[in-house]
């Protein structure tokens, strides 16, 4: 450990202390609050199984919202990502599109949900719109990055034939970036299910609506049923997407390694 490193670590620790003071982050309060957690946990253990069907139905609704949001969001994101890729467009095209996408990503989905609740009223539709926006911002970014990472050799070889830009996109860009796309969509769906689970907090539908209401009325046992369903569902989706990834994506990555030689 060099003296320079020590100074850097010292500065970081000092900043954490100062910032904690500024935001009233007090470890002592945390220690004092632990017994409260015990009370909540105790109440949560009084799980009320008769709410399981309602919870499952709410979860199903949540998954549907996430599904629509992911599919529609990706469909909007793809053309935008083509416009945002630096290796396909001039600066005058990609710069504004990138700025727009960055602006979309600035808001977390819950803020989009609030905005859409104001626009279209309470309910699941506002939640779906929020997920669409969030997906557009992220999938477009991930996708334009993978387009920019495409091997330049096929791009050059095919451009040298004098094909149109549409043909270049159809025959080189889409096939070469598609394997990343599947993995990105899976990731996004996985993430959107979790996001949609909390959108109910602002009245945008989904299972979060139940959770926040039961918590508000201190009915932790009922809330626990819904939270448990979210947990199990997210773990299940995670497991499924790992399986899909192994089956389709690892294979094509392997193919790329072979061709790289």
């Amino acid at each position: 450990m060099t003296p320079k490193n020590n100074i850097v670590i010292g500065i970081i620790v000092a900043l954490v202390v100062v910032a904690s003071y500024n935001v009233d982050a007090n470890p002592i309060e945390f220690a004092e609050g632990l017994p409260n957690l015990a009370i909540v946990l105790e109440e949560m253990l009084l799980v009320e199984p008769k709410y399981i069907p309602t919870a499952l139905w709410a979860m199903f609704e949540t998954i549907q919202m996430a599904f629509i949001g992911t599919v529609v969001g990706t469909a909007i994101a793809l053309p935008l990502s083509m416009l945002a890729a630096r290796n396909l467009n001039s600066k005058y095209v990609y710069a504004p599109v990138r700025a727009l996408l960055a602006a979309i990503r600035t808001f977390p989905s819950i803020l989009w949900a609030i905005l859409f609740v104001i626009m279209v009223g309470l309910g699941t539709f506002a939640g779906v719109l929020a997920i669409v926006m969030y997906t557009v911002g992220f999938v477009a970014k991930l996708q334009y990055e993978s387009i920019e990472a495409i091997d330049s050799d096929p791009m050059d070889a095919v451009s040298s034939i004098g094909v149109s830009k549409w043909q270049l996109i159809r025959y080189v860009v889409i096939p070469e970036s598609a394997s990343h796309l599947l993995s990105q969509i899976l990731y996004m769906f996985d993430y959107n299910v979790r996001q949609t689970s909390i959108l109910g907090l602002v009245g945008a539908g989904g299972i979060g609506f139940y959770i926040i209401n039961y918590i508000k009325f201190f009915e932790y046992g009922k809330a626990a049923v819904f939270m448990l369903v979210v947990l199990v569902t997210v773990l299940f989706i995670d497991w499924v997407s790992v399986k899909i990834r192994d089956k389709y994506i690892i294979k094509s990555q392997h193919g790329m390694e072979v061709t790289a030689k």
Partner: protein
Amino acid sequence: MKQIQMTQNPSFSLISTNKIIQMNNVWTSYDSKNFALEEINLSIDRGTNYAIVGQSGSGKSTLLKLMNGMMIPSSGTIKIDYVTPNMDNKKFKKMMHTIGYIPQSLGLVKNITVLENIMIGALPRLNKIQSMFKQFPENEIKEAKRIISLVGLTGKEERKAYMLSGGEKRRVAIARALMQKPTILLADEIVSELDHVTAREIMNLIAEAQKRMNLTAIMVHHDMQLALEYANRVAVIKEGHKILEIGVEGDTIVDFQTGDMNTDEIMEMYDDDSKK
């Protein structure tokens, strides 16, 4: 190795007027100080099997890229079939459709099939709907099948490109170029990584296509022996300069360079390269 007899014959080079490629005092640079190519003068007859030989970094790949408009010279003039190669030049852009270019890396699209890769060569002839939905017209499919059998890939049309062996990939790249109905075929060291037998199979394939379609093949090589075996003419590039241009006629090598190159130097170069 064949016994090679050397003769000096500077007047031989300017007889034909049917020049498909002409380069006059061409200089290129990747930055303002270092020149990749210096003072290059070249003229290539239509229908020739031409080879450019040199070691790594000698500028031979750059020379090819000048011929298909992917690079613009810093100074000097280039004419491809009497047109200046430049992507912004509409006349040349049309010409690019019939200039086959195979980079050293081959530039295949890994995740599409052999047939689709080959069809890329026909894209300039397809309309928007046909190319967007991969609705290839009958005559183009027929042409593709013909070329596929010519390059020996029959039965592998539906394989993804990444599943192919090194030799097969080269066949696909050649087929893609032939699908362009090319007048010029540019190939950059496409056999240097192959074993002896496969390399010769690929070279024979190109030689046959070159004769059959009467195209001008310009191939960059690392290996002088291979170049002399297949080409009618060989230009030797060293550190950005064309130091030698020789023609091969039967067992005789004719030196076209007007400079004072001598036979010993050629042989020395020949030995240097064939040792690798």
